[in-house]
């Protein structure tokens, strides 16, 4: 295959990898559990700082032990300590880390090959979506009629918080994780990411964080809402410590991933790949990474303050001590609003890419599309307090935040222009990715328009805290982002697996999910309009019809997602084979074999034009 992989004197060279030859997810979990126990022991036996809430200190120490143990066990600290001792990796080490000759086992290890990391992200995303989805079904089942049914309020309140945060985590990585990692480096003509070890670190850190987050369910849950407002979170049980620590761990993952993505895109493009020849998906990934780099540290500090409050009796959010819940709200939303664009932009950028290939025409208004994504990211940093319009905080700032928030509708509108403009007068190839894209267009209008309602303060004073808000962001997260993520999956599935994602099952799934979304969240808008608050474990009879309809819709969505899961599982091993370039696209990932070689290219390509030239001659070649 490539000369770079062959070792002419294998017998004489030492095997690479060192300690890493014995490390994998299993050792990570074992080390994590062992050090968690050590942390627990230290907390219980040795540490006592004189306050009566020592339970939280023990919990935090336990989770710290888990976090460190997991990293040790997976091999994340191997390289830093080797660096410390002046022993750098050899070529054999690097090839071992990249997963050479390890077959399936490399997916369970700290593998640096970006393609392996991409597949690992697919699995993690699916796992998080599954957990969040089960919780969603539990929530909607409980809300089928007024009154308490199969879970009590405490459990229900916990379900909604964990459903929320698990789904947020899933959607943050849903497109940027799998495809920002698997596809993007090939798209720019690179052999791997700029920092391959950081790539593995970001994935495994996410796994560690996700385990802690889901572990919340085992310690009494998180009955405080996923925005974990300061005052009520101070009240909560150990689940809150789990949540806060999960976030602390998670922000390490996103920061590392952001640094890696941005550096890769800026520094590792192949010769001729100037920024204006960059596939638009790569632009989207870079803009997203920059936004995430800015936003997530705020979340880290918001939760670190919370941990301090709960373990060392500080008063960040405790009013009696001089603190204020508004501090938590500001820090949280300084992260929280950019975060929703971190979630949205990769999905939109993937759809831009898909729309061009499927319409056989260039991306319409490429530069404007890039500009719109940049504007969206930039504006998103100055709109955060629209989540606090009714909090009573700084009423005089309501007007300015209303202005910045409503301005966001302009770049968002450009997205529609680009998508519709790309498809217009095209020869639109109605394959599975295209179908989900049309679903996105329909849902994103509804999500976007209802967002404008909420950005108007007088309207928000009626609608804030109601199911109207919940319906709005579910139209965005489920109706738009998830549809974009599934389109991306259907589009790049052949590059990862060598097979098409089953068209028939995919379309059944699409119609079930699409119709289910309209029923569930359409009725939910009405619940909100009528006056149903959100996060209610039970509700008055005035809302029974719309809730019943929402629950029915949720089951339809579930059916659709199960069909999709079936499609993924069956197609991966037994789907219709696809060649290396089933969509006849021009971007670099389609010019390499499926699966791509370990280091992507035998010879690095030289680029002379962007990937949006569809010529008659080339298509028929």
């Amino acid at each position: 295959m490539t000369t770079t992989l062959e070792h002419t004197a294998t017998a004489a060279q030492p095997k690479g990898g060192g300690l890493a030859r014995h490390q994998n997810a299993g050792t990570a979990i074992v080390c994590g559990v062992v050090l968690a126990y050590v942390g627990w022991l230290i907390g219980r036996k040795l540490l006592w700082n004189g306050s009566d809430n020592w339970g939280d200190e023990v919990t935090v120490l336990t989770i710290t032990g888990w976090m460190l143990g997991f990293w040790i066990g997976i091999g994340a600290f191997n390289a830093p300590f080797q660096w410390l001792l002046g022993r750098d990796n050899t070529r054999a080490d690097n090839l071992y880390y990249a997963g050479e000759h390890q077959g399936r086992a490399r997916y369970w290890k700290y593998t640096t090959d970006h393609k392996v990391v991409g597949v690992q992200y697919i699995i993690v995303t699916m796992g998080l979506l599954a957990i969040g989805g089960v919780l969603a079904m539990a929530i909607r089942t409980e809300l089928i009629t007024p009154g308490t049914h199969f879970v009590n309020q405490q459990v229900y309140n916990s379900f909604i918080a964990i459903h929320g945060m698990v789904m947020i985590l899933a959607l943050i990585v849903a497109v940027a994780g799998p495809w920002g990692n698997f596809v993007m480096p090939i798209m720019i003509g690179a052999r791997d990411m700029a920092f391959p070890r950081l790539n593995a670190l970001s994935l495994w850190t996410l796994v560690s964080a996700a385990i802690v987050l889901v572990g919340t369910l085992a310690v009494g849950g998180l009955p405080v809402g996923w925005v974990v407002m300061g005052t009520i979170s101070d009240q909560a049980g150990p689940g809150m410590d789990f949540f806060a620590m999960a976030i602390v761990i998670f922000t390490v993952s996103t920061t590392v991933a952001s640094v890696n993505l941005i550096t890769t895109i800026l520094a590792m493009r192949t010769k001729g790949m100037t920024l204006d020849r960059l596939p638009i998906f790569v632009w989207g990934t870079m803009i997203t990474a920059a936004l995430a780099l800015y936003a997530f540290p705020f979340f880290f500090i918001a939760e670190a303050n919370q941990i301090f409050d709960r373990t060392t009796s500080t008063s960040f959010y405790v009013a009696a001590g001089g603190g204020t819940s508004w501090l938590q709200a500001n820090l949280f939303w300084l992260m929280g609003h950019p975060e929703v664009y971190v979630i949205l932009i990769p999905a939109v950028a993937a759809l831009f890419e898909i729309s061009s290939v499927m319409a056989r025409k260039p991306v319409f208004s490429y530069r404007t599309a890039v500009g719109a994504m940049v504007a969206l990211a930039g504006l998103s940093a100055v709109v955060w307090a629209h989540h606090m319009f009714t909090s009573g905080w700084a009423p005089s700032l309501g007007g300015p935040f209303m202005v910045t928030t409503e301005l966001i509708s302009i770049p968002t509108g450009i997205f529609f222009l680009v998508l519709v403009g790309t498809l217009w007068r095209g020869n639109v190839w109605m394959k599975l990715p295209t179908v989900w894209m049309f679903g996105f267009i329909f849902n994103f209008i509804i999500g976007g328009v209802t967002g404008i309602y909420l950005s108007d303060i007088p309207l928000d004073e009626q609608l804030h805290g109601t199911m109207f808000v919940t319906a709005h962001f579910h139209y965005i997260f489920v109706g738009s982002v998830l549809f974009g993520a599934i389109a991306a999956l259907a589009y790049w599935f052949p590059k990862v697996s060598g097979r098409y994602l089953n068209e028939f099952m995919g379309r059944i799934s699409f119609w079930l999910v699409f119709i289910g979304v309209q029923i569930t969240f359409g009725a939910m808008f009405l619940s909100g309009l009528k006056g149903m608050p959100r996060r209610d474990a039970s509700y008055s009879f005035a809302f029974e019809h719309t809730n019943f309809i929402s629950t029915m819709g949720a089951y339809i969505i579930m059916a659709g997602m199960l069909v999709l899961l079936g499609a993924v599982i069956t197609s991966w091993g037994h789907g219709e084979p696809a060649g290396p370039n089933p969509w006849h696209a021009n971007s670099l990932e389609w010019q390499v074999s499926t699966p791509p070689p370990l280091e992507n290219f035998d010879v690095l390509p030289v680029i002379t034009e962007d990937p949006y030239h569809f010529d008659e001659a080339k298509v028929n070649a």
Partner: protein
Amino acid sequence: MSIDSPALDDTHSHGEGQHDSPEKIDGRERLGVWLFIGADVVTVGALLFTYLYLRAVDTSGHWMSMYGYKGSLHTYEYWFNAAANGTLKSPTLIHVGTVSAGLQWVVAAITVVSAAVLWTGEKSLRAKKNAKSFSATALLAALLSIAGIVFSAVLLKDLPQIFVSINDSNTMSYTTYDSAMMALLASTIFHLAVLAFLGLGLSIRATRGVVSGDRWYQVRLVRYFWVWVAISSVVATLITTTITYVH
């Protein structure tokens, strides 16, 4: 997009395990370090935001005061028993003083000096190519960081605790000023620990010849971060020593 056969490319191995030249690798590692510094700027920014915000809102006028009992004078058990026995008199409004400004500046100064030491060492390494001497310099910088940690720990230890007893809920507590200072000090200690690790690593690597007059790129990378930590230390200390009492 056309994939022509390349005139020149970077497929040939340079150095151990890398396809690209040391300059190219250094180029992207520098970008990576700057991006990390960017994230750290936001993080420290958020900490300072916390400090300034809490002072600005001064909820219930308790930025530097709290109702309770001078906790530091006795053990928690003493207070707990007093509360249980009902022998606690009514709580007083306790005013905490500012954390020692002098000691804060000592920590900042140590951080700045350690950065200067490292930077000087780097320049000397590039000029004179004496790896052994650089090894000692890097070790010195690391030791200075550890000294900074020690002083920061002293500051932390001296944060006054107040025993608060409300509705049978007893706890040792901190004012918001002390809370914000605690978070900043924890951040300082963490950053200094990272610097100590980096300095020690450079020192060992120089001894082993991995870092030398010809291979000094990583020293520069570490220096970037070190200088940032020094700057953030000065900025934070300026804020926490000048913007203190609410007037």
